[in-house]
């Protein structure tokens, strides 16, 4: 259920503007990889390129290789829709579908992709996903109410339930807690700790304590100046990055002397 991702020499463009340059890294399976760095350094752009969400923006393109279990995501015959079924994503702001109930939101991936699914099977899937996202006990008596009636933290966990309902190999999280209060953040961090037993998780975060708490490995991105591309400076075990980084830039950022 989890895969290793090898990224080599990845350049990411918006039209002619190169937003991220020359990223080479390996994302380990069944582990949490955190990406940190100052605003505008291309973390979000990078994470979106891992499930081909980057190209949804007009004019956006990617050069280089992203290989998951021997298959290049940007190979000529690869269907981005199939990629996204394998690599799920949770966004910065909770975005449940407003026209759907809680139940339908969780079932959305399955229903929209496969059309007809047996009711019993779908019920199981919804319950399993909501339990997986630590939300089941809070919503089990109101599954048919709209998802937009939940609190922000609950909505974000609903979105995580929706993402894991399609049973992806990898789960990408783009600042999943930045719109949430500390209690909801804690709930999501606990959830990440359980999810990593099954999934490969990549999380972008601005909160360095969060990166230190939840991740096994950490990558530090930075940018030399406005209009310059973002680069991966250093990637290592989280404990090492936060105690004894190799690069001066990383140390400066972590100790708050920069950014």
């Amino acid at each position, binding site marked *: 259920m989890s895969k290793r991702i090898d990224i080599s020499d990845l350049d990411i463009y918006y039209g002619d503007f190169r937003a991220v340059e020359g990223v080479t890294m390996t994302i380990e399976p069944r582990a949490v990889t955190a990406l940190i760095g100052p605003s505008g350094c291309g973390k979000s752009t990078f994470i979106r390129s891992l499930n081909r969400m980057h190209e949804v923006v007009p004019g956006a393109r990617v050069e280089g290789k992203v290989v998951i279990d021997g298959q290049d995501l940007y190979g000529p015959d690869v269907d981005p829709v199939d990629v996204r079924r394998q690599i799920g994503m949770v966004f910065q702001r909770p975005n449940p579908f407003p026209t759907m109930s809680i139940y339908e939101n969780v079932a959305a991936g399955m229903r929209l992709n496969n059309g007809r699914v047996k009711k019993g099977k779908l019920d199981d899937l919804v319950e399993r996903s909501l339990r997986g996202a630590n939300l089941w006990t809070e919503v089990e008596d109101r599954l048919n109410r709209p998802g937009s009636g939940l609190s922000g933290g609950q909505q974000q966990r609903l979105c995580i339930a929706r*993402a894991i309902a399609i049973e992806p190999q990898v789960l990408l999280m783009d600042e999943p807690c930045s719109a949430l209060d500390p209690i909801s953040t804690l709930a999501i961090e606990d959830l990440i700790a359980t999810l990593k037993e099954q999934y490969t998780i990549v999380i972008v975060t601005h909160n360095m304590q969060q990166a230190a708490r939840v991740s096994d490995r950490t990558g530090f991105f930075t940018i030399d100046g406005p209009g310059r591309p973002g680069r991966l400076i250093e990637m290592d075990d989280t404990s090492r990055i936060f105690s004894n980084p190799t690069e001066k830039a990383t140390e400066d950022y972590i100790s708050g002397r920069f950014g």
Partner: protein
Amino acid sequence: MSSTARHTTDEPAPSLEDMPLVHRPLPRWAPYASVGVAAVIAAGVLAVLGFGPVRFVLLTLVLFAVTLYAASRTVEGGRKATDRLVTIVVAAAFAVAMLPLVSLLWTVIENGIARFDAELFTSDMRGVVGPGGGVLHAIVGTGLITGAATIVSVPVGLMCAVYLVEYRRGRLAKAVTFLVDVMTGIPSVVAGLFAYVLFVLFFGPGVRLGIAGSLALSVLMIPVVIRSAEEMLKLVPNELREAAYALGVPKWRTVVKVVLPTAAAGIATGITLAIARVIGETAPLLLVAGFTSTTNWDLTDGRMMTLPVFAYYSYTQPGFPPEAGQQRAWAAALVLIIIVMGLNLSARVIARFFSPKTGR
């Protein structure tokens, strides 16, 4: 910080007595009193100059604004006085805007009520020369022609809007937007001529068909549907599209299952208002659907009467005695207005029905 620094240098900091938070307001009855004063003065002035209701209202209004402004300015100060003056101006502008609407409704109801009876809805004009007769044939014609126009316009307009918002690419999309803008401004008689010429190509000169009327109305309706649907689709947050893509949902399913349902309320309202917009068209239907005195249920067979055309003919060629025809014309106009109002009301109901539930 800078403001305290400035105060300490040149002038003493203003104490609370210099800047009171409580102002003495005008008493509550002041506006009514000034209306009364204004009315009395206006009546006095007009007693000299000659009385007229319109003059009286206008003069009262002006005097009311002046007296209240002056009173407020002396008691309450400049800002409150301006507030009161602008309130009066805005309210007056609203009243001016409502005036034609109310007057129109009043006139139509007053004149149309005489023949607003059961016979109006149950009989057509076949063999009717003098009094009696009804608009059944026109109601049927308006219903069928507008219905057919809606069936054509909604899919075309909706799909075009989906293209413009979800699939737009470069020049083609710009050209389509431009053409839609141009089409919105087409005079309705041109749409009628277009439909007439098109049908003449197939059926020869002098052709009059209900379906040709539908085509003319579609030409007018499609740009309205495109515009309103486009605006509604643009309001759907991009995050919802991305959420669906990230679940591995193909783009077309995202549009059908996520984007369109989210925008459904606005789109339904837009369609209803587009129908209301074309249902009263006269010129194109006069050209291509013609007029008749019998009920015709077949869009593809011969002339078809419609409510606007009926009102036009009954009023310009009322027959003998002319009162009967003119009353029928007013009654037809009343029916048309009721239909349009019903459409507008149903647009609100539809919007409430479709709109995303918040669940709070």
